[in-house]
């Protein structure tokens, strides 16, 4: 076929005896956007790591614009024109925009010093092309994630990139930043650059991609023009079963006791005069755009940040002082949006993560932990939450897929049977199948009488799981509605 940018034939890879990729055949055409979808653990990351030269394939062939391609390192992949834009960005926060753009090779003067003037000029051109609101001298640490991402894309373009791989690029972007990214991706396509776009947000994949490839259990299930797929078909081929419901239905009743009550709390001008009440068995959602103060509200409620004004009542007790420790004593739990840095000991085995919170209750009077009980509870959690792990005593958390990592975070707190549960973006970076399982866990907790607060930027998710929803904008609650009044348009209107 003409104009094939990257061709993979029969690429195989196994890790310690487990076959992760079973003979992948894939064509990426020049100037097209190819969506790559699949559940966590389907082998997307492995495949991309092989293309990016991070790991070597066991067998198979790759060719890049007709030439045999076998990258030995990430650097050689970069030099051959393949660039990655990851969730976590590859920029140096302590350097300026211009320095980041030229980090791999600065323009130099005749005696080897950096030619600041040339660097500034070239950086300005680059910035102008994307009309970024920065100067070459701006330090990256002062920029938002969206702008950082644009800088990373610009940097890739400066290196004569022919293929760009986006791995979940929108997870920390605001709506406007996302639109801008999509516009940029379309421009890249017009310039003949091939795009591989990996995302769990199928809506985006449909909007952006010409063709979609579905990967499941290390095999390519289907590759077809995007127009030939319907969303339900796509989900079906990803999950391998019919997903009639995206959200589970669990019969539960809302009690009358208020477990969590906040009245008129404010923090640093970011959270302003917010009040809320959550009853036994109730799930309350908070929707808002980036920067609306949602995450900050959660942090204040859990005592991570000290509130400036207002008071918080848990289980009917007015708390004079808030700290995570006090909240945990009140049987509250907080699952953060940043599971990598805040929620998990990523270089420890699954078991050591699961029992982290429960440990204190498992020790006897002498401080010795009841190992039998600990193992039983861990195994039970792995079973209940369907965490996919082969050896929970040895396998490290960071070797699990995103969805399973999130389940470990849940497991850690669920074992403690929290009365109050605060969740910040509980399904970020999690695939459809695992999302369903996480919603089930949440609903079952509510059924058993917990009060749950979910913060999310996905309206659908909140509509699907919550009993009541608050909308936040600029730190203020602009709307409070029961399930019967949920309306997409109205919610968005209140948030914008």
């Amino acid at each position: 076929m003409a104009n094939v940018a990257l061709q993979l034939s029969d690429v195989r890879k196994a890790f310690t005896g487990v076959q992760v990729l079973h003979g992948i055949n894939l064509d990426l055409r020049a100037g097209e956007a190819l969506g790559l979808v699949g559940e966590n653990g389907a082998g997307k990351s492995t495949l991309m790591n092989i293309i990016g030269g991070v790991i070597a394939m066991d067998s198979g062939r790759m060719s890049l614009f007709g030439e045999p391609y076998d990258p030995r390192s990430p650097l050689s992949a970069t030099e051959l024109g393949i660039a990655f834009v990851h969730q976590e960005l590859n920029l140096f926060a302590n350097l300026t925009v211009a320095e980041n753009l030229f980090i791999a090779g600065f323009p130099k003067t005749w005696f080897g010093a950096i030619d600041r003037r040339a660097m500034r000029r070239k950086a300005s051109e680059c910035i102008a092309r994307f009309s970024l609101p920065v100067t070459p001298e701006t330090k990256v640490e002062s920029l938002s994630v969206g702008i950082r991402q644009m800088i990373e894309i610009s940097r890739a373009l400066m290196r004569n990139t022919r293929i760009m791989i986006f791995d979940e690029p929108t997870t920390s972007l605001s709506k406007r930043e996302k639109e801008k990214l999509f516009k940029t991706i379309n421009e890249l396509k017009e310039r003949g650059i091939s795009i591989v776009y990996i995302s769990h947000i199928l809506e985006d994949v449909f909007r952006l991609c010409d063709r979609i490839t579905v990967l499941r259990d290390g095999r390519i299930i289907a590759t077809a023009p995007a127009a030939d797929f319907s969303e339900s078909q796509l989900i079906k081929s990803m999950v391998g079963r019919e997903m009639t419901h995206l959200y589970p239905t669990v019969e539960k009743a809302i009690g009358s006791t208020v477990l969590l009550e906040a009245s008129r709390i404010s923090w640093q001008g970011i959270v302003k005069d917010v009040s809320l009440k959550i009853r036994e068995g109730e799930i309350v959602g908070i929707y808002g755009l980036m920067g609306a103060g949602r995450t900050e509200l959660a942090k204040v409620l859990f005592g991570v940040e000290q509130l400036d004004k207002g008071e918080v009542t848990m289980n009917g007790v007015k708390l004079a002082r808030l700290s995570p420790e006090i909240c945990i004593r009140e049987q509250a739990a907080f699952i953060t949006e940043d599971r990598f840095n805040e929620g998990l000991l990523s270089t420890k085995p699954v078991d050591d993560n699961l029992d982290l919170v429960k440990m204190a209750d498992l020790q006897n009077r002498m401080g010795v932990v009841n190992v039998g009980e600990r193992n039983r509870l861990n195994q039970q959690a792995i079973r209940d939450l369907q965490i996919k792990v082969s050896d929970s005593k040895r396998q490290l958390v960071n070797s699990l897929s995103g969805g399973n990592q999130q389940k470990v975070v849940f497991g850690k707190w669920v074992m403690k049977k929290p009365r109050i549960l605060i969740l910040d973006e509980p399904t970020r970076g999690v695939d459809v199948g695992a999302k369903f399982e996480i919603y089930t866990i949440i609903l079952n907790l509510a059924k058993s009488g917990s009060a749950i607060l979910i913060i999310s930027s996905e309206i659908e998710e909140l509509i699907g799981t919550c009993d009541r929803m608050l909308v936040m904008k600029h730190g203020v609650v602009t709307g409070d509605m029961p399930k019967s009044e949920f309306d997409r348009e109205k919610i968005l209107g209140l948030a914008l």
Partner: protein
Amino acid sequence: MKANQHLGNALLLLLTKHGVYAALLTLVILFSLANRQFCTSDNLLLILQQASPMGIAVVGMVFVLLVAGIDISVGRSMFLISTVIGFLGTIGNDVLGAWLNHSWGLALILGLVVVMGGMIGLLNGVLVARWHMLPFIVTLATGSIMRGVGLKLSGSASLNVPPKLVTLANGRVGFIPIVVVVFVVVVVIFDYVLRHTQYGRHLMAIGASAKNANRAGIKVNRNLVIAYVVCGVLGAVGGILSAGQIGSVAAGFGEGNEFIVISAAVLGGTSLFGGKGSIFPGAVIGIILITTIMNGLAMMNASPFIYTIAKGLVIFFAIALDSIRYRGELR
């Protein structure tokens, strides 16, 4: 009560950013009030002269701290290298002694010092970069070995350093001490390297994230090793000048200097967490502050024990400042 928090945060930030200048100014005023001799041009020049040898070592330390490393062997390498020079001078061998006191003996001495310092830095750097050993432990070990070798060599006796060196370290051009000139030259060169060369910018990048630096195609290991070599060489030069100022190398020479050097760098805004710091004004102001404290205490005839306490307090405040600054700006 929480309304003040905003103001409090702003004040804290201001203090951590510019507190060193405020502290220096306060100390100068206090010491001037306590002793009329303090704020004389003679004494202020003396402070600069006293600060210069350690200041040269601080410049090297900044390089290592920038890549989130540390070199606590620097005081002991100062001891070993100065002992070797003193030993060569007093070995009783007329030929060698004559060489060292010959007109180009000084160049020979400095050459030897640079080579020895570079080799020590190379050893530390390779152990840290290639063998992935913790810099703290590596330099603790190499430092201990160097101290042992030095003591064996001198038999823990006090050795005189070659007279040429004493002249250099205490001499003046016009009214300006030669060591101050050397310090200024070192600062200018290495500040330029840090700010205006690819190597300097790569050090900053490695300090921010070694993983990302590697992915961006930066030769992380090589740059790390060079940073340790720079630290070793400048530490050695600072050490020999310090020995020259005293005129001899006693058994306790150099002990604790590593902490003066590290605290000076950190007081000057260089972070122990890597990726942040400067030579000018940072390292310069840091060492001047510490030397001012020592000089002022001496002018007030403070007990020697007070010095140790003062050094401890300085280290404590430097590190506390660093932690606050780190939370305040990088997160």
